[in-house]
């Protein structure tokens, strides 16, 4: 019950962050795309792809990033033991947002730019980019949020390390029990 409450609180915070931070976040995503050589500009909750040799495309970029609400809820409900795991999971989620925006822009060029897309791309490219965006939007984005959280929340020590530490704890006096007065 407490976990459910924590999930709702985390998701509510995630919703507020997603709602209000989207314009700034979209600008960040566009900047990341520019590093990769793609041209895109954010305006409000939309992104405009501005390739020189193609008609420009407008995309509702906020619809690609709302899996952060589920992620925030899950992190709040079952917080990873180490903060860096949560940060690593968040960075992985952000990386998938950059990738999702790149895929969506590419799909806009291939499938939603009329004759230009038909003349520049093959039938396979049409199907591939359509399927990639569809799979991400229809459920893939939530699967990604789940996987990022799951890896962070259930990350176990490497088997060798664990064996070594268990041997050490056995030497020190079985498990968590420490000799009275022993130093850490």
């Amino acid at each position, binding site marked *: 019950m407490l976990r*459910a409450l924590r999930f709702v609180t985390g998701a509510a915070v995630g919703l507020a962050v997603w709602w209000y931070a989207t314009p700034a976040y979209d600008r960040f995503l566009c900047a990341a795309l520019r590093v990769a050589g793609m041209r895109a500009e954010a305006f409000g909750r939309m992104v405009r792809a501005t390739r020189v040799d193609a008609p420009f495309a407008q995309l509702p970029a906020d619809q690609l990033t*709302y899996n952060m*609400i*589920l992620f925030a809820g*899950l992190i709040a409900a079952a917080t990873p033991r180490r903060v860096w795991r949560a940060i690593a999971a968040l960075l992985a989620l952000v990386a998938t947002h950059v990738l999702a925006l790149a895929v969506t822009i590419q799909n806009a060029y291939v499938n939603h730019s009329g004759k230009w897309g038909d003349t520049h791309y093959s039938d396979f490219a049409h199907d591939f980019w359509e399927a990639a965006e569809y799979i991400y939007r229809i*459920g893939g984005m939530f*699967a990604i949020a*789940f996987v990022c959280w799951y890896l962070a929340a259930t990350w176990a020590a490497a088997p060798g390390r664990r064996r070594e530490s268990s041997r050490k704890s056995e030497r020190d006096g079985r498990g968590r029990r420490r000799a009275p007065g022993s130093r850490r």
Partner: protein
Amino acid sequence: MPRVRFLVIFLVLLGVFELTLLFDPVDRSVVRPFTHEIAVASGGILRNVASGVVVNGTMIVAPCFAVDIHNGCNGVEATMFIVAAVLAFPATWPQRAIGALAGTALIQIANLIRVVSLFLIGCYRRSWFEAAHLAVWQTIIFALAVGFFIMWSRRSVPVNASSA
């Protein structure tokens, strides 16, 4: 690494399930009839609270609002999420079957509530519809799917647990 194995199988199964939705015959003969049944059930509930509700294929139409139920709003994708996760988890086959059936029932009941509530939001607070449709209800449905899977996987004993 059993966790990584679980995640790989889960993602492969989910990808395969979602790809099948892209095939026209699957869409025509499975998804659309199923979505029509959701529209009929939702329309039946809505007739008790709104007047002039008519169902036409996958559309629910009333004087105040109309919705067309597509993939993403029929609960199929969240059902696939649960089924993929349950099948990927190393439980016994009877446990997996029970998990998949119970998860599917949970998601479809929640989805019925989603469709009805979204229709009413469209009728009475249209400006809220877009945010409720995408961010809020999609998150709730997938949160239910994840929550169900976590609870189910805690109660299901992994098949290799006895040898451990």
